């Protein structure tokens, strides 16, 4: 009997025929689990989750509130006022994802999608050099415990593993994100995708707001799909805007209410006096908490008394 005459939905028939099963006899030897794909029980997911490594931010306090660092398979949105250190954090993560597996990292590469032009290569080199020094130091510590490994990385190697895309319009942004699927299936060692920032091209001169909502939600789903399929972390940066709520003007993240549902986790960076703080605004498994951090010559580090905001006299 032909598969085409089976009483199943048209989409399933199409799938079976596309997969090459045209007669019942070809199906009879398969088990249901071969055909069913995509579902996992919570038990399996729990074990997978415990084995996943996280990407450290190089700031111990920040890592603590994030439960160890930025998680793979999730989309993390980081928002804050201009000058708070979003791009610095992005560059730091792009370097930290390359920490070798022996030293506790992921040993992967990074994709950096720059929409604002704020990525400075000299700064990336500076952070990479500091990171290599840190790795060598950590390696020496491990050697004392007889667990050494070779750190052959040079700062230039770290820079080579960052794939950089410069975007100049929203159509380019949509195109790159659609292209990323093909790119990452060709470069399977990419473990983080950073979009800095996702808001820039959608804020000004967008006449049709309904179109903007559709494009943004479609883009969010594509990023979620990327994160899940290729087991990588997606970090997107957002800007702030003022919103009139509860009787006064307050700061809120840009792109509106419908975009705020398109991320798995949200972290908000803000000033508290003269210190930089990070706050977990939304997370399915992390508690809401705040932690201080600072931006130093070496990158993102723990907060210290001499790393405060510089006030112009």
């Amino acid at each position: 009997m032909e598969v085409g005459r089976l009483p199943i939905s048209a989409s399933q028939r199409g799938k079976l025929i596309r997969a090459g099963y045209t007669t019942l006899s070809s199906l009879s030897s398969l088990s249901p689990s071969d055909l069913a794909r995509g579902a996992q029980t919570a038990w399996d997911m729990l074990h997978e989750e415990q084995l996943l490594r996280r990407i450290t931010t190089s700031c111990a306090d920040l890592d603590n509130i994030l439960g160890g660092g930025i998680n793979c398979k999730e989309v993390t949105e980081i928002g804050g006022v201009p000058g708070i250190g979003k791009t610095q954090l992005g560059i730091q993560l792009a370097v930290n994802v390359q920490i070798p597996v022996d030293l506790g990292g992921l040993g992967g590469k990074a994709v950096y999608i720059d929409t604002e032009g704020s990525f400075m290569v000299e700064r990336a080199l500076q952070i990479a050099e500091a990171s290599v020094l840190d790795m060598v130091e950590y390696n020496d510590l491990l050697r004392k415990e007889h667990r050494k490994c070779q750190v052959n990385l040079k700062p230039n190697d770290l820079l080579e593993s960052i794939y950089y895309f410069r975007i100049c319009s929203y159509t380019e942004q949509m195109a790159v994100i659609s292209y990323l699927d093909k790119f990452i299936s060709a470069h399977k060692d990419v473990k983080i995708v950073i979009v800095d920032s996702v808001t820039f091209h959608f804020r000004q001169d967008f006449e049709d707001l309904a179109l903007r909502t559709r494009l943004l939600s479609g883009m969010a789903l594509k990023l979620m799909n990327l994160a899940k399929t290729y087991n990588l972390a997606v970090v997107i940066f957002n800007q702030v805007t003022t919103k009139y709520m509860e009787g006064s003007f307050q700061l809120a993240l840009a792109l509106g209410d419908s975009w705020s549902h398109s991320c798995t986790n949200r972290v908000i960076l803000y000033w508290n006096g003269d210190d930089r703080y990070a706050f977990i605004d939304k997370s399915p498994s992390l508690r809401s908490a705040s932690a201080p951090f600072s931006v130093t010559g070496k990158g993102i580090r723990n907060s210290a008394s001499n790393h405060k905001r510089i006030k112009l006299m």
Partner: protein
Amino acid sequence: MAPLKSLEQYPRIINSHFLAFCASHGILTVEDFLLHDIYELAALAEQQPDPEGLKEGIEELLSMVDGELHQPWMNGMDLLADSLQNKHVLSTGCEGIDLLLGGGLREGQLTELVGPSSSGKTQVCLQAASNVAEKHMGRVVYLDTSNSFSPQRIADFVDLATHNFLQNVMKNILCHSVFDIFTMFDILHQLELDLRSQNGPRRVRLLIVDSISSLITPILGGSGLQGHSLMVSAGCLLKKLAHQHNLVVLVTNHTVGGEGGAPKPALGEYWKSIPHVRLMLSRDRGNNTCSISILKHSSMVYLGSSGEAIPILSKETQNIMTRVTVVVMSLMMIFMIGTSIDYVPAPAPNPLYHSSDDY
């Protein structure tokens, strides 16, 4: 529409004589037959050589249409029996929400959770999933669109945390990641087939789609109404699954800005009438509690615009004194609910929602 000729496989009654008779009156398909006046056809049959055979043919055709083309008619007693025996109430795991809903989530109904970002919708879904898998011995199907399904959180919700028990509970929660509406339709159709043939000690009792609005928003609007039709057919499919297989279906929706800045549920006017129960969640940033209220319920009536509800009682409402008592009691209940629902408190409120002088 099917031509009458295809019914020749029932040669006893629907024979070529009957078909010729029908054809002579312009009836060539089943649709023509149903549109034609049956009494007139019977009267015309009297004038034919074999009136009894033709009339039997008409009866036979009518009974075939009745039996196979639509769902059987159910009367009120059947529906009541079905509702009492099959449509149970499942607790959500949170006492306050159960109290608000009059026991919990009802099987056979589509319940929607609406709320702005970070108001606790996913947490309610996770807790309901863990509760159904643990206490109601049911299986849960969780469709996740934003990678927010957290197995660690489910493990935290389970009371008895011994390894074997936890394994049993968590093996009965199945999570699919869906990122477009067509995948969701595929999964739901597959689920429908599985449910028809399900056997075994545990059956699927809860279906969660978190969140359905992120699947529908990319296709809504634009030049045509195709997005709206997909949305409505998704809603109808979910309600059909809920009714026919006695499932609780829970979906989440987000909010958009409404009049005066107050948030209103997304997905617009067409979606409004689809869920049976709509619940609005909101988070109070000041003291970090979440609150839940009813926007729409199919068996509760509203007292005020804030969404307070009283359950509709059958005979008692005719007695005015009892009605007043009911009102007072439910106001007390609402008061108790307002103070009893709180989630894990955070140590620091969201800094962006403070009017800060630094900026």
